[in-house]
């Protein structure tokens, strides 16, 4: 586990970034936004409670959490908000409303293409309305729906949730890279195999943690175990650590790399990075609970 000084360093940086309204911008001094606030709400930091309150306050009557009325609703960030609001019983009703809304939306389907040899009919989750399904929003939404069901929610929509989970898992299986793991989008274009990315792979693996030992899951896990020490950033290292712990894999080496990376990560002060670091630097047993789904 990390030294208390590392936890303190990250916790202080996170606390300093919190806006007076309780929310967080992506960087200190920036306007409060949904995604960084959701990640901050998932930390074991004192700031998390007010962050959750900000998220609940930003929820519209249609269920969506928004930071800008003119911007399209972001499904991935709403999924993160749902996961964060599921942490405490007091905000689970808000989380379930997001879950209901997520079950009603999907990415656009396209006909088969010789350029991108994949199943374009699979409608998982897109970032925003009217666009294609991508790995990160699909992983976040899938994890949110599974987490809600783990807590006994979304039972009114059991059939719909089951169907959406099935499509999302098929999409992730279809888009898995030849190397194992996931690019942010396609696995190949013009017959060229695309690179798998560590953060998207970690998110996707969290979303399919209940599907071991499916080959595409095991392949992704091997990729992450091998590559997680190669992509040096606080965010990639923290997400990898979080994911590998959920899979019961050793993370001592990653924790050492995180300690070495902190002098870079903390001054850059990206709140999403600080929050993910805060989660994995925590000794608290419950720190990983929001990312756990029933198998």
């Amino acid at each position, binding site marked *: 586990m990390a030294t208390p000084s590392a936890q303190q360093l990250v916790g202080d940086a996170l606390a300093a970034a919190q806006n007076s309204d309780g929310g967080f911008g*992506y960087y200190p001094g920036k306007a409060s936004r949904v995604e960084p606030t959701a990640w901050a709400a998932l930390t074991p930091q004192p700031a998390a409670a007010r962050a959750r309150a900000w998220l609940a306050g930003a929820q519209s009557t249609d269920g969506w959490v928004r930071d800008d009325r003119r911007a399209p609703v972001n499904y991935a960030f709403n999924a993160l908000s749902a996961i964060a609001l599921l942490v405490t019983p007091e905000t689970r009703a808000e989380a379930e409303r997001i879950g209901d809304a997520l079950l009603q939306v999907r990415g656009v389907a396209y006909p088969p293409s010789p350029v991108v040899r994949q199943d374009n009919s699979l409608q998982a989750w897109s970032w925003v309305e009217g666009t294609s399904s991508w790995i990160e929003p699909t992983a976040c939404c899938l994890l949110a729906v599974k987490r809600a069901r783990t807590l006994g929610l979304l039972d009114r929509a059991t059939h719909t949730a089951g169907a959406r989970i099935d499509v999302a898992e098929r999409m992730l299986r279809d888009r898995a890279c030849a190397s194992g793991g996931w690019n942010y989008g396609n696995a190949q274009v013009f017959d060229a195999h695309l690179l798998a990315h560590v953060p998207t792979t970690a998110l996707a693996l969290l979303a399919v943690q209940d599907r071991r030992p499916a080959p595409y899951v095991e392949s992704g896990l091997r990729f992450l175990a091998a590559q997680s020490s190669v992509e040096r950033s606080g965010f990639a290292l923290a997400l990898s650590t979080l994911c590998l712990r959920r899979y019961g894999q050793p993370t001592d080496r990653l924790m050492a790399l995180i300690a070495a990376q902190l002098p870079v990560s903390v001054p850059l002060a990206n709140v999403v990075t600080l929050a993910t670091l805060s989660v994995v630097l925590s000794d608290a047993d419950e720190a990983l609970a929001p990312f756990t789904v029933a198998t």
Partner: protein
Amino acid sequence: MSDAARPRNYGTHGTGAATGRRQFLATAAGALVAAGCGSRPYDPRQFPRPERSAVGLFAADGYTDALADIVYRGLAELAPPVHGKRVLLKPNMVEFERDSAINTHALVVAAAADALLRLGAAAVIVGEAPGHRRDVEYLLGVTGLLDQLADRRLTFVDLNHDDVVWSPLRSRFMGFGELALPATLVGADLIVSMPKLKTHHWAVLTCGMKNLFGTVPGAVYGWPKNVLHVAGIDNAILDLAATIRPHFTIVDGIVGMEGDGPIMGRPRHVGVIAMGQDVVAVDATCARVIGIEPMRVRYLAEADRFLGHAGLARIEMRGEPLARFATSFVLPPSLREVTAG
């Protein structure tokens, strides 16, 4: 999913003329649709153009310390006044693969920052909104840009996650009235597009205009700015270039990318830095350098009608002659009809 399965659409034609970028962005009611613009998706009166646009080609064999003087010479000869200005450098930093040529080289960015400060710029900020990787800490580190910024105490702004300003679009090829743009971009006195010279398997060429995709905030539109793809890549390139109107363009064509660009292609040495105020003219010149006929690139042909000059007769060449660098990049098979000759 990719754009390949999507129908592309293109705007109608027109000619035309402009007001200042910042003035326009600050005018909420701006957009186009002015009386008399007919079916054209822009108001020609907003896009005045010079008779001819100057483009400089400067020889640079490699990524060395000599770049600072080369870029300084180009800026001194071709750039608008920079003294006292707050300048935003917008390199292309989208993905990373070792031994590839995906991104604007960190030493070119550093050279531009040094030259601008030497010319009296009040501040130089580097900003990018990567279209593939969201994790700028990783990209900054692995590309070497973080070290260059630290050496110069320069600020980097993560444009994907900046505060946004809703900005009316000066043209409507996409059919949108406005777009969220990073506050740092809108607040800059001078914007310098700093692309890598690459082929692009959907847009043919990615250079100064296409580089502006990397100003669109992913935190609003998602990655890889798929909203823009759905609206048509060429349309998006035109609307972004017409709205942002970079004041200057510096192209890293020392080692470009041919083949399956902008990510999976092969590095190709060209040995050139291209510069100029008219991004259309710079892009058209770079297209000619790598053997692409610019008028066969749809967004360049369209931009030539109102935004800048792509035709050779309207471009005044400075620096080295184009023939010194002229080559022929390998294109993906689907794009070979656009090659010159």
